[in-house]
């Protein structure tokens, strides 16, 4: 509050709000001396500074007008995204800046205090409300049979209309636990449908493959990894999966057991798979066991074999449901 701009002039008191002005103008520098007692009407006596500000605000509005015309022309001429964004920004900024300048320099800035009454109603009001409510409530209360059966009817209605929710989709069934590999004997193919011989795989990269005829199956993308000699020596198959490896080639589900993202990054020299979504890391040499990150289960493994022509086939489904966990996964 600046003491050199007393706000006790007749035109200043915001008596409508039955309040006293508490703060005045905390930016006196912006006001010219002649504005210390600003007239109540908007027709302020403009000083040089005021004239400049007014011209600036008018300039903002003018820029906005021109930018709007430019926007229309830009559209007419075929449109241009960057230009459209910039021009629209200018349109809005011109209006916004103009209004703010107008408000800051040419509108009354008296601060006023508005009383804050306690939110809570008086005891008398509460009692009056309670009495009126209970007057109705008691007529409900005195018909216990109707309250019970009427409430029951509404509850039964609520139950009955829940049933059509069932129309939204099929029963989950066993789809979550089964992939097209189930049954065994299905060839493993590339995205283009071509079968794979183990010798076609290199040790420094992984290949994403699918069950033949199901290259669009979202639950069956599979990682084929060829281990180098050192890794093959270290690789210890899980119990019961001793024959699942063919000529140093292992196959795991590509779907992360955390949230189902494809585990697409392979660090071949250390044999680690990294999921790009949440950085779960799996150790291929240890049966794709999770060694870092939020994933808690190993990637399901696919049992491999060779058919008569030397192409890779799956002898059965994955060692477990692929992808993220779910409530009845083990049931």
């Amino acid at each position, binding site marked *: 509050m600046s003491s050199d701009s007393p706000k006790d002039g007749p035109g200043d008191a915001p008596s409508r709000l039955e309040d006293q002005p508490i703060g005045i103008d905390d930016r006196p520098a912006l006001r010219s001396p002649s504005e210390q007692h600003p007239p109540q009407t908007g027709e302020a006596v403009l000083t040089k500074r005021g004239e400049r500000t007014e011209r600036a605000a008018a300039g903002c509005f003018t820029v906005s007008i021109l930018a709007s015309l430019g926007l229309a022309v830009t559209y007419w001429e075929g449109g241009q995204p960057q230009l459209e964004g910039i021009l629209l920004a200018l349109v809005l900024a011109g209006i916004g800046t103009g209004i703010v300048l107008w408000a800051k320099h040419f509108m009354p800035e008296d601060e006023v205090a508005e009383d804050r009454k*306690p*939110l*809570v*109603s008086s005891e008398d*009001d*509460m009692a*009056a*409300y*309670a*009495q*009126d*409510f*209970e*007057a*109705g*409530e*008691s*007529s*409900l209360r005195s018909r216990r049979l109707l309250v019970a059966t009427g409430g029951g009817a509404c509850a039964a209605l609520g139950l009955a209309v829940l*049933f*059509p929710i*069932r*129309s*939204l989709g099929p029963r989950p069934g066993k789809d979550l636990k089964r992939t097209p590999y189930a049954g065994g004997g299905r060839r493993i193919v590339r995205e283009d449908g071509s079968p794979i011989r183990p010798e076609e795989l290199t040790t420094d990269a992984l290949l994403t493959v699918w069950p033949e005829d199901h290259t669009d199956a979202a639950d069956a993308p599979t990682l084929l990894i060829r281990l180098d000699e050192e890794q093959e020596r270290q690789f210890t198959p899980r119990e019961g999966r001793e024959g699942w490896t063919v000529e140093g080639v292992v196959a795991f589900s590509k779907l992360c057991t955390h949230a189902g993202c494809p585990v697409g990054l392979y660090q071949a020299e250390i044999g680690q798979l990294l999921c790009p979504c949440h950085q779960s890391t799996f150790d291929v040499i240890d049966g794709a066991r999770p060694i870092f990150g939020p994933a808690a289960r190993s990637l399901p493994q696919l049992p491999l074999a060779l058919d008569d022509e030397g192409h890779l086939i799956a002898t059965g489904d994955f060692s477990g449901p692929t992808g993220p966990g779910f409530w009845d996964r083990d049931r």
Partner: protein
Amino acid sequence: MAERPTRRRSPERLLTHKGARWVDERLGTANLARTALNKVFPDHWSFMAGELALYCFVVLLLTGVYLTFFFDPSTEMTTYTGSYAPLRGVEMTQAYRSALDLSFDVRSGLVMRQIHHWAALLFVAAIVVHLARIFFTGAFRKPREVNWIIGVLLLILAIFNGLFGYSLLDDQLSGTGLRIIYSITLSLPVVGTWAASLLFGGEFPGADIIERLYVIHILLVPAIITVLITAHLAIIVRQKHTQFPGPGRREDNVVGERMWPTYAAKALGLFFLTGAVLSFLGGVFQINPVWIYGPFEPAEVSSASQPDWYMGWLDGALRIMPGWEIRAFGFEIPNPFFPGVLLAGVTFGLLFAWPFLEARVTGDRAPHHLLDRPRQRPVRTALGAATLSFYIVLFLGGAADVLALTFGLSVNAVLWTFRFALLLVPPLVGWTTYQLCKELSARDGVPTASRVRVRDIPGRLRRGTPASEPAAGPQA
């Protein structure tokens, strides 16, 4: 309320009381809630129509949400393989396919679809009856002009959204309707060709019309309707209800039942009954059997192509209109402009303007909270009845072909009859209504056109409510 007997039983322990206190300490709502509890609703059977419209809208929202889960608003072509044998192997749009699936292969789909359709029909019907009630009792007068305008807007939106809704399914009938809408849009002077092309995304049938109508039907219009209904009701609460004159009923009070608990219970009951009627209709009475119409083929049409009832007057106007077109300066005003644009524009324009027109003619600019009985206002009532009969003739004209077929008449003769009827019936109805009003008023022994007349409405008042009944103000 102090004179009412109180039976307070340790209210602090009541759950409702605790809840009320919890809310009050945060929002300070005790007085507001008490005002709501004690809000007075005057009771008259004719006040029910607006309420019915509201409940129909709720049913429309509930069933509509269910339908959106299954309907596919796409014009992509597919081959039908569903369980309705006659159409198996037929090429159709995804929109029509999903409408068939909703009807045959989605459990609870058909009943929801039909309840939705019936609710739309009754929604508009309830609005029209409500509008007639407001009109004939003079409830639109100052200070209620704003709510009258909102009401007319709601009527227009309800009609359009019903039309958009049944146009989505892309069956033969709705496709025919869309083609007529396209032609009417095209008939707009100056902007018609542009408007039609922009709305439909090109020449009919257009690439985008189904998808666009879908967004308009399920999002845009319902949102606007919801906002307008909210405003409509807020204004009613602010202005309080109108009431018929009667003992103790004055311009400066409202006499009726309290909101809590009786009126609230009645309203809830009416909501359930509305739902019951709509469910019965939707379950038992087939409506819009799109599988019979087949998928839309631009080159095909069936006779007896009638729209839903609320479009009937427009369809009738299109049929009754003589074959005039205006050509001048190298431009033309196509025939559908007159019935499809001009008539509709004048209809709704007059509706919007009526409160102001009447105030200007009568010079009555005073606020009114007591209703007129229709017979007290013979001129207004006669004009209203004549206007209604005009639209009823148009509506029946929409069935000209069906009437001709049913009664073995020539379509031309039937249409000519409707052309004459359109000119003759309204004046006749107006004159009769005027005489009837005079007669009834004379029998009542009350001169007509009196301003506010305190009269007894038979059977309306059940108890002599004191005039000092607190009108639910916070100061009460």
